[in-house]
């Protein structure tokens, strides 16, 4: 049997429906098309058609036009949409609420246990560190969910049907998430700093400038969240992406213990020790008494930018 004839793109289905049936078995009634032009010559365009206009031809002349004005969509539309999306799901309130409670709650507990002289040469924001170590998991979870939940629920098809410019959707997600995460995290750290300085305003406490720790601390955990968002976009699976991100945070904090055992792997272990997320936060909050964390922050910026680039690269290519 040969390939059945490929149907011609038809101009007038009513006049001569092309029959593209596979060869019919013997004995079965063979469906026959209407009058087929001799030699299968291409049909005349609609205006030249001798036949009376068919239903759809008439309809074409008064094809539907909407009264809603047509405007070019832009990033602003995508930002408004993503803002509505993120604030209209429970997981946002949950993760950010728990984050806030952890940072401020643990911060208050720690501040209450410390004396004025503990702040002689460390910033007042130090109590926020302990909550952040746990709270970063919340931002990671929210970051992952911003992208992966759309894949999990099937919403992504609706989203990309409404906005076929996929890069714009991802860019809007990143911007909206980053701003929210930064405002909430820096705000929480600021609050802890203000409360601690209020509680320990005695002469024994030094006046170490702590504004940098608010910005850098907020930036660090927000970037971790953006990294998680990019991971969610690439892996498209909530549990998988959250697990991967926990690995990124925890493995470099635990592995050095084993890497230190052998001489060969010791340098690698020391680097991991230096740059893992928990130690990076400790450095940012000047736990070791000296300011820093800039190179740790830069490393995270680099990793996050690379992950975002990967997410964008995969975004356009893949089917959804």
């Amino acid at each position, binding site marked *: 049997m040969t390939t059945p004839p490929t149907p011609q793109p038809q101009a007038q289905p009513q006049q001569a429906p092309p029959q593209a*049936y*596979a060869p019919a*078995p013997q004995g079965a009634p063979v469906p026959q098309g209407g009058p087929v032009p001799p030699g299968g010559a291409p049909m005349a365009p609609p205006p030249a058609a001798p036949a009376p206009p068919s239903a759809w031809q008439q309809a074409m002349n008064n094809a539907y036009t909407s009264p809603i004005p047509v405007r*070019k969509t832009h990033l602003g539309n995508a930002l408004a949409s993503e803002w509505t*999306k993120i604030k209209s799901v429970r997981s946002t309130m949950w993760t950010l609420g728990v984050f806030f409670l952890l940072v401020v709650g643990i911060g208050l507990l720690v501040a209450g246990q410390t004396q004025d002289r503990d702040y002689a040469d460390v910033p007042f924001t130090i109590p926020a560190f302990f909550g952040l170590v746990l709270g970063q998991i919340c931002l990671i979870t929210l970051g992952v969910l911003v992208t992966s939940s759309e894949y999990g629920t099937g919403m992504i098809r609706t989203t990309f049907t409404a906005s076929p410019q996929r890069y714009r959707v991802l860019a809007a997600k990143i911007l909206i998430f980053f701003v929210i995460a930064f405002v909430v995290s820096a705000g929480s750290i600021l609050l802890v700093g203000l409360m601690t300085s209020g509680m320990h305003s005695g002469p024994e406490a030094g006046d170490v400038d702590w504004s940098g720790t608010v910005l850098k601390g907020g930036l660090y955990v927000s970037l971790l969240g953006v990294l998680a968002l990019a991971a969610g976009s690439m892996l498209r699976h909530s549990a998988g992406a959250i697990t991967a991100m926990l690995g990124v945070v925890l493995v470099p904090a635990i592995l050095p213990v084993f890497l230190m055992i052998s001489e060969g792997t010791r340098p690698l272990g020391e680097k991991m020790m230096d740059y893992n997320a928990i130690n990076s936060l400790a450095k940012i909050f000047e736990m070791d008494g000296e300011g820093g964390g800039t190179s740790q922050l830069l490393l995270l910026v680099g990793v996050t930018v690379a992950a975002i680039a990967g997410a964008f690269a995969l975004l356009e290519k893949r089917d959804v």
Partner: protein
Amino acid sequence: MIELEGLTKRYGEKMAVNNLTFTVHPGIVTGFLGPNGAGKSTTMRMMLGLDNPTAGAARIDGKRYAQLKDPLKYIGALLDAKAMHGGRSAFNHLLCLAQSNGIPRARVHEVLDTVGLTQVAGKKAKGFSLGMGQRLGIAGALLGDPEILMFDEPVNGLDPEGIHWIRNLMKSLASQGRTVFVSSHLMSEMALTADHLVVIGQGRLLADTSMADFIRQNSRSYVRLRTPQRERLLDVLHQEGVTVVEAGNGTFEVDGTPSEDLGELAARHQLVLHELSPQQASLEEAFMRLTAESVEYHAHADHAGSGAAPPPPGQGGDWGAGWQQQRKRS
């Protein structure tokens, strides 16, 4: 107007959509018919730019979907009623879609009203029944008041009232001059709603014809006879040159001779008839035959490579068999 040109999608070894070329015209309901696994959803995903075609292209008013600047005002699509975040309220779901295309908020209230979900606009989508989810999906499709609408199996799993509502909606949308493209695996459903019919099987185009033509060409009419005098009936019909097929249980089927003529013939020869009834083969049967052929074609093409035994040659009575086989494959 939607134009498909050689649209093809391959998943590994599997040809899900195979060189589809057809046009969806405005102002009518075009039915997209094919058994489960025929490639309807895949075709629609490619039309919407969600899946990348292996070859060929789909164009909307001459543009690729990704080139549309304001897609919701061009096309509204309902692919899957569950394609939404269950934790978001109906209103917010529609609002975020509207905002992404710069559609005013007031329009969200309008479409909620159109689909009858105003009462539950603040409720989470995950608490919705299938029918309500379907309505919400349709509200999303109507948001941009688009000239083209696309529905993938919209009546699946709906109760009779929901089915009725969707049928009427599609007809009224088309009567406003919009392009309506709707898929189904049920011929009977298409017969009720579609003006034009595109049939696919195994990813291939099997028919592209107006519904009226399809019905005219595919509803075989014949006359069923039943008689206790089998031998005599066969004799008489043979003498008259009428071909007859025995259909079991003492019934006979005659093609191409009106029942009036057969009745008079029987009276003249004093034959006892227990039944004389004109019959129409259903469109469902015509559809099965069409798709069964595509399976057959497919199996023959496979034969050389896979060594699978070719199915028995199709006969009238084997339509069902072909259908069963088709279902097992998909």
